[in-house]
Structure formats: structure tokens, C-alpha cells
């Protein structure tokens, strides 16, 4: 049937419209059928559970009574909850800023190298991103270990007292953020390196002729050209970092005294370990606002790009 167009071109116009119509109908049916597994998966295992989480958050502990917003209201009067909110924001925002800074700086250094050596360095610096986080975090856990900390061993060589990396709230907060930066910075490096390569050399040449120094080139050429990718990478990383689970879970499991809990680990502790599923669902729902903001910006970006092309 598909060779219909070629054969029927000289035929009368109603017949041609018929085949065209039929083809269009067939085309969209086939297209829909091909996309159907995806639609089912997204609807059944992503959208439905997300909405179900909202419903779950409105049940009481035994999950037999509907209590409306009582769980949410309870959380709002709970000191630990506000500590988790603060820690989640501190964790995500600090980590993303430092990841972006390290990524930006190191991408410039790699870009400076002769083209032949870049591959090697890029390959080496991306390793933290490739190792499964759970496994690299265990290595960090031991680097921080109170009795056998390899960091404290080095500090001791310089006569500095041992640091309780995971034992004191503030140091523990620092440590989980440090590990997150270590894990995420290479991603920024790769993104920014790709962006740097797409800036045309002529722009730098023009800036050099106008007498711009290195800082001016970065400020007036590189940053404006990379603005989009910087924004979108940070947005993505913010979401992923907000939703992070494994690093905090393995390093501190939320301790000492809940000081390093973020939304995901606290929801896990309450919902799965504490067997209070509605409360866990309520906690994890507090991630939605940041997701909503991100979705808004990304949608705007996509539609703007769509209209400009």
C-alpha cells in the first residue's frame, strides 16, 4: 500500500486525496502505537505514583482514615522539619554553586590545553561521575572515619588536631556537601567544556583586537555565550541535588541528631524505616515547589527555542 503515492500520482484528484487521507490516518495510528508503551509507562509508573503520593500524604498513620492536610500541618509545627528544610536548601544551593564554579574554572583550564591532551584530562576528570555514587561514598566514609581517617592522618603529620568529619553537626554538613561537590563537579566540567567549544574563535579574536584582557574576554564573550547552558545545567543540578539520597544516607544516615537529613533521607527514615508511609509521603512532597519552578523555566526555555527556530 505504501507505494501508492508513486503509482497514483497521475490518477484523478479525489482518488489521490483518498489515499493521502488514508495514509495520514495510518501514519498517525502507527505513530500513536509506537508511542503507546512510553505513554503507558509514564502514566502508570510516573504520573500515577506522583498523584498517589499526594493522596497518601492525606491519610493517617494506619492508612485507614482520610485526614486532609493534618500531616502537612503537623510537619509545619515540627522543629526537625524546619531543620530538614534548612539543611536541604543549604545542601543543594551550596553544592550547586561550588559545582558550577569548579566546573567553570576547570573547563577553562582543560580548554587551554593543546587539543591532543584534552581528551586524556577530560577522561580523567570525569571519573567521579562514572563511579556509582553509593560505592564512591563508601570510600569517602572511610576517608572520614574517626579512628582511621586518612585525612586526619595527613593533618596529624602537620600537627593539626583530628577533625570529627562526621561526628559533629557542622563538620558533618560540610562533609556531605563536599562529597556532593566531588561527585557533581565533573558533570559541569563536561557541559561547560562542550559550551566553550561552541563559542566561535572569531569572537575572541575580535575582542583581542579591541584590546580586551583575559577577564574582559570571559565577562563579555564567554559568559554571555554560555548563559543558556549555565542556567540549564544549574537548574538540573539543583533538582538532582535537592532529591539526593545516597550520599547522605551512606555517610551519616541523617545524623548526628538529624542535623544532615535532607528531604529524601528523612522521608525514607519516616516512611520506610519508621513505617509511617503517609508522613514520609508528606515530607517528600515538599520537594514539589522546587520542581515546579524548574519545570516552569525549562518549559519557557523549550517554547522560546521552539518559536525562534
Amino acid at each position, binding site marked *: 500500500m505504501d507505494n501508492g503515492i508513486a503509482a497514483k500520482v497521475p490518477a484523478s484528484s479525489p482518488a489521490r486525496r483518498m489515499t493521502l487521507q488514508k495514509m495520514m490516518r495510518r501514519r498517525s495510528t502507527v505513530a500513536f502505537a509506537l508511542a503507546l508503551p512510553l505513554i503507558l509507562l509514564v502514566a502508570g*509508573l*510516573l504520573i500515577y505514583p506522583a498523584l498517589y503520593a499526594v493522596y497518601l500524604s492525606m491519610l493517617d498513620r494506619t492508612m485507614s482514615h482520610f485526614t486532609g492536610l493534618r500531616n502537612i500541618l503537623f510537619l509545619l509545627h515540627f522543629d526537625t522539619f524546619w531543620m530538614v528544610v534548612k539543611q536541604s536548601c543549604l545542601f543543594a544551593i551550596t553544592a550547586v554553586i561550588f559545582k558550577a564554579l569548579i566546573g567553570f574554572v576547570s573547563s577553562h583550564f582543560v580548554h587551554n590545553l593543546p587539543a591532543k591532551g584534552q581528551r586524556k584530562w577530560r577522561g580523567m576528570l570525569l571519573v567521579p561521575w562514572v563511579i556509582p555514587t553509593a*560505592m564512591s561514598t563508601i570510600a569517602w566514609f572511610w*576517608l572520614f572515619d574517626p579512628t582511621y581517617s586518612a585525612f586526619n*592522618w595527613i593533618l596529624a603529620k602537620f600537627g593539626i588536631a583530628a577533625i570529627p568529619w562526621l561526628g559533629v553537626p557542622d563538620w558533618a554538613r560540610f562533609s556531605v556537601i563536599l562529597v556532593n561537590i566531588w561527585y557533581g563537579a565533573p558533570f559541569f566540567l563536561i*557541559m561547560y567544556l562542550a559550551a566553550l567549544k561552541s563559542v566561535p574563535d572569531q569572537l575572541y579574536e575580535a575582542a583581542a583586537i579591541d584590546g580586551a584582557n583575559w577577564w574582559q574576554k570571559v565577562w563579555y564573550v564567554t559568559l554571555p555565550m554560555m548563559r543558556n547552558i549555565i542556567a540549564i545545567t544549574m537548574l538540573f543540578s539543583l533538582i538532582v541535588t535537592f532529591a539526593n539520597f545516597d550520599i547522605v544516607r551512606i555517610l551519616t544516615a541523617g545524623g548526628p541528631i538529624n542535623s544532615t537529613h535532607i528531604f529524601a533521607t528523612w522521608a525514607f527514615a519516616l516512611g520506610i524505616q519508621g513505617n509511617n508511609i503517609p508522613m514520609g509521603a508528606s515530607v517528600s512532597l515538599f520537594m514539589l515547589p522546587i*520542581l515546579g519552578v524548574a519545570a516552569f523555566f525549562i518549559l519557557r526555555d523549550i517554547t522560546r527555542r521552539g518559536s525562534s527556530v
Partner: protein
Amino acid sequence: MSASAQAIGVAESAKHGSLKRSRRWALIWSYVFLVMFAVFFLMPPIYMLIMGLKGSGEIAAMTNPWWVFHPTLENFKALLTSTQYLTFFRNSAVIAVAVVIVTMLIAVPAAFSLGRMRFWGSTTLATGVFLTYLIPDSLLFIPLFKIMAWVHETTGIALLNHWWALIIIYPTLTVPFCTWIMIGYFQSIPKELDEAALIDGAGYIQMLTKIFLPVAMPGMIAATIFAFTVSWSEFLYPMAFTVSADQLVLPVGIVTTLIKGDVYNWGQIMAACLLGAAPPLVIYAFLMDYYIAGLTAGATKG
């Protein structure tokens, strides 16, 4: 006349020389800082290797943690003969391969349909799929846990605490992004190609398998690598849904069973981490360009 020409020549060479020198300094500084970054980035994996090679006696003696005095393979040997560790490894491997297959079977046809064929609402759907990629696992694990328990109650199929159930769950992590990568690749193929195929009498399925798949091969490889590494390293879902030692996957198995012992057998734990990180690292070493292409596709393609 000649003097002024000479002067210009001298000035030019001086300027040239200073440019060259400043470029050399920039290069030297780049190397200095890159070495520092490399030390920071490679410290944990190197530490894993150092500790993995240490015998338990050397670790107990608390000698220099940054050096191996008597390298031994006893940790690796112990792991490779421990049935428990091999079970974790097998569970992880079977899940990862199965998830890759399921992901590609769902993502590739869908991407072809959304990127090339279009139907009513397909653009919205493409955007929607990308947005669902933003719904994190830490929001979904509680409702999914409840749903799995409900499935058990109503149908008698026990999903919780069975490693194969993760094969159903993991595609939620991989399919949206892989679809997005493939849409980008399919859209970059010139339109004349499918018109030519249609005129030659190819059906849509033929068009996909005979023309688009070979042309979009780099995208397929990138998506495969992405799906594999994501399912290999996922931690939250197996942590929430599996408990028994024989149902665990590698990341959870190492964390819960190897660490929980009264005596921390650190040499073995580090060796276990290193072996567990090996499959993604090997893939990365051989297919780095595809790996990076998959990583950057999300940003550059849309």
C-alpha cells in the same frame, strides 16, 4: 625607510614573543591547577585501590593509609569466592541488561514516533516526557512501595523483596531521558531521507529499522550506556524495595551486608566497591565519546 621597517619588525617580534610567553604561562598554570583537580577527583578511587590491596593485618596495624607496604589480592579472592557477593553482582548484571533492553524497546519506537512521525498532541507529549524525567526517585519510592504492596494483596504477585521487580521499576529512571536523546538524534536526520524511503515503498517500521536505526547508531549507543550506568548505580529503589541478602543488588549489598558486620572488614569492602565500579568504568574507558555525547545531549539538543 628601511629603519622604520626594521623597527616595526622588531616591535612585531617582541609582541609575538610576549604573546607566546603569556600563552606558555597560561598553559603552565592550567597544568598546575588541573593536577590539583585531578588529585581531588581521583583520590577516592585511588584510596579504594590502596585499601583493596591491603591485607587485614596491615589495616589493623594502622600504618600509613596512603601506601601499601605488602600488596595482596586476598580481598579480591575472598570476594570472588563469596557466593553472597557473586549473587549481588549477578542480580545487578541481570537487572542492568534487562533494563537496557526494555528501555530501548520502549524509547526508540516512541522517539521515532514523537520526533519524526508526529500525531495529535505529540509535541506536548515530547515535552511532557522530558518533564517527567525531572520527577525524582525520592518522590516516587513511597507511593511505589505502597503500590507494590497493594499488587501483592490483590493479585498475590509478590513484588517487594524480589530483585526482578526492579526491572519493572528502573525504566522510569531511564526511558524519559533515553527517549529525549533519541528524539534529538532522529530529528537531526534530514527529512529527504524518509521521503525517499516512502517513495521507494518502505513502510514506517521498515523506515525505522532499515534507515533510522543505522543512522542514529551513535545515539543508540549513548542511550544504552546511559540506561546501563543508571540501573547499575541506582541505590534508593533497591534500598527501599529489597531486604533479604539474596535479593540485593551491588550498591545496597555492599552498604548493608558488608558494612553491618561488627568487625569492619574494610579491605574487602573497598575491593567490593572497586569491583562493583568496574563495569561502568570499563564501558566508560572504551566508549568515552558516546558516554559524553549522551551526557551533553540533553542540554545541546534542547
